[in-house]
């Protein structure tokens, strides 16, 4: 039984296996540093004939992968450039990007389509400074009808890191059927209409709210999901992050989440649920619409303040809808949130020049117009192409969409989730800490000092 030979065979077998496991665990730790540095490669070899392949990294969903259909025309115009699309599901977008970069297979062009926002990419030093490329190329934002204030969003200390491509805004969708039933006139789409205020909205919401034991009959007047949670005080004019955040790449030197102004702002929002009782609790919303669903879609909400992506499903809603301006809430400068997606070139790109050609192609009026149809309603940044976007939604007056968009750009502030470092952690923390307030188990006075402390910690990481 204890044959020596067999013993050695078995030991060898086991040793081999362990070695394999150990090997796969330890190799290549140095990876991230030794990849070719950007900016040098392609600069000189413009006309040399040998075609280069650039990789565009995006989300694997129909409203993103439509770019594959734009490639043939681009390659016809640029015979020396080939474009490959690399894609990942939303949840795995960041993991795959990190792995590709660390593994020396960095894509050339992408946007912050995953959990992480621009500031995270910037602070991890993943992005190529486009300033010189832009100068060399003679790229002018106005040639592509991109408003100047949008170009500034992704400029840090006078260096440009991204070219805007799509822009969602915060707007109000309303259920016309519910307004008709309550005999109310529709809210205005004009941001200059001074009568349209937060208090007026609450008043109208009261007339549409109906709380009943029968869950199928219950309906609420308004669902106010303006921006991410940490940004909401801004709507009422309270600023939780210090001013330097917006110029230094998203690292706030101070935060004020425990200040009386910020707490008062949150109080106003929670009053909608607990005092005025015109907004649903989060439990009710979840039971009606599922974990990440929107109860407005189920036809149980009169007015829904949220991102303009809610428009995309409009043609399938079983009721008539309209769009309106976000009412004035006490902040004369900011009433809407902008969600501008920039196209960025990654630092490890070996062909930044060719990558920039691809970016320019994607923001031309013709391609931006085509993209609206192909993507099923992605809003362009190009104001010339935007005219086509305003007409895209069945049963909604294009003039209203236009007014709401133009007002949002005028009174808009870029969403914090793109601008603040370590944002996914901040956002997760907010969701967890505010949970007991949303269920009515804790007060804001108890929770906000904790949030203030935790935000400070996360920013320092």
């Amino acid at each position, binding site marked *: 039984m204890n044959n020596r030979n067999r013993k050695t065979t078995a030991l060898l077998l086991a040793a081999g296996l362990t070695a394999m496991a150990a090997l*796969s*665990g330890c190799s*290549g730790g140095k990876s991230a540093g030794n990849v070719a540095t950007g900016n040098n490669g392609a600069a000189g070899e413009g006309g040399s004939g040998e075609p280069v392949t650039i990789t565009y990294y995006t989300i694997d969903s129909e409203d*993103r992968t439509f770019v594959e259909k734009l490639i043939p025309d681009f390659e016809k115009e640029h015979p020396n450039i080939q474009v490959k699309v690399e894609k990942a599901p*939303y949840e795995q977008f960041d993991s795959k990007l990190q792995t590709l970069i660390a593994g020396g297979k960095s894509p050339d062009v992408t946007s912050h389509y995953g959990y992480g926002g621009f500031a995270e990419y910037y602070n991890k030093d993943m992005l190529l400074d486009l300033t010189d490329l832009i100068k060399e190329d003679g790229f002018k934002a106005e040639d592509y009808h991109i408003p100047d204030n949008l170009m500034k969003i992704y400029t840090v200390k006078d260096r440009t890191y991204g070219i805007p491509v799509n822009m969602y805004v915060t707007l109000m969708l309303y259920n016309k059927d519910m307004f008709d039933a309550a005999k109310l006139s529709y809210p205005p789409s004009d941001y200059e209409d001074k009568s349209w205020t937060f208090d007026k909205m609450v008043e109208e919401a009261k007339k549409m709210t109906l709380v009943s034991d029968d869950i199928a009959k219950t309906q609420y007047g308004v669902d106010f999901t303006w921006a991410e949670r940490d940004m909401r005080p801004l709507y009422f004019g309270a600023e939780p992050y210090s001013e330097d955040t917006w110029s230094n790449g998203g690292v706030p030197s101070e935060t004020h989440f425990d200040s009386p102004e910020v707490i008062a702002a949150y109080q106003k929002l929670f009053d909608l649920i607990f005092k005025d009782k015109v907004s649903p609790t989060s439990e009710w919303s979840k039971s009606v619409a599922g974990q990440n669903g929107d109860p407005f879609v189920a036809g149980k909400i009169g007015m829904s303040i949220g991102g303009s992506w809610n428009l995309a499903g409009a043609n399938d809603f079983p009721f008539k809808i309209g769009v309106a301006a976000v009412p004035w809430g006490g902040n004369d400068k900011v009433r809407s949130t902008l969600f501008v997606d920039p196209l960025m070139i990654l630092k490890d790109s070996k062909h930044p020049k060719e990558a920039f050609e691809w970016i320019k192609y994607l923001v031309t009026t013709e391609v931006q117009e085509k993209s609206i149809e192909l993507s099923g309603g992605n809003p362009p940044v190009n104001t010339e192409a935007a005219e086509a976007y305003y007409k895209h939604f069945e049963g909604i007056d294009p003039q209203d969409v236009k007014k709401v968009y133009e007002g949002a750009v005028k009174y808009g502030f870029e969403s914090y989730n793109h601008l603040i470092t370590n944002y996914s952690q901040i956002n997760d923390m907010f969701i967890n800490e505010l949970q007991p307030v949303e269920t009515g188990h804790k007060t804001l006075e108890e929770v906000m000092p904790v949030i203030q402390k935790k935000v400070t910690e996360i920013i320092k990481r």
Partner: protein
Amino acid sequence: MSIVRTANHRPAASAHRRRIDPVKAASFITLLITTFLMLLPLFFMVSTSLKSKKEMLKFPPTFLPESWAWSNYRDIFDTLQFGTLYKNSLIIAVLTVIGTLISSGLVAYGFARFRGRGNQFLFVLVLSTMMLPYPAIMIPQFVLFSHMNWIDTFLPLIVPAFFGSAYNIFLLRQFFTTLPEELFDAGRIDGCGELRMWWTIALPLSAPALATVAIFAFIYSWNDLLTPVLYLSSSEKFTLPVGMASLTSSRFRIPPWHLLMVASVLAMLPIVTLFALAQKQFVEGIVLTGIK
């Protein structure tokens, strides 16, 4: 336990009156209710898979579809390259199962049947690989396979299975150690080599354990999302979970839940089949262990 005892000890004389045993009835009803509760989500999955896009958004949700949208089962093939995804997933899962059974079976046999210096240490070393979570080895492994030019092939998804997995090695080793020594002595007298004994004695007697490992390996590979996402880049090589994840990946669109449910129903079939086959092995395995 007590239920069985009461049933067995009841005098045979009362049997002719077919009285209903209250304990038995209560347990039967409890089981029935639990079964119902367990099957409810499954029922909703099938029911939603047959609803139209408009009906899927309805609140309160309908229990049965108002109009049966059988066309969903055709639409899934237009929305995703469903056939290709299914085929890719099957190829990878079947090869993973074969690889796991061979490699983990061999290593486990070694650990179970041989005593030697460092044996315990090596076993602990193998088990300790279980403590490394995938994200920790994700990048080094990617670098390794990328140097081997295996990116965008099935190899990184299949080949690792041929190098054993600690959990399955542990499971099989425990089973192999319970096999009676006499069988192997008899084999040795007849002139069997170790590999032959592994193949003709150990493996056939371990059907239940092998079936368990096969199920684990299959389900793991069938459900795996992150690894194929990292290694595959052309759409025609994607697996089922990757394709299905794309349906819910847009933050700006309402996901087509009805089609996702169609995909889920179809994706469940191989696992249900495998369970049915494996269950037979469990029963037969208990009967046929050979020596009492």
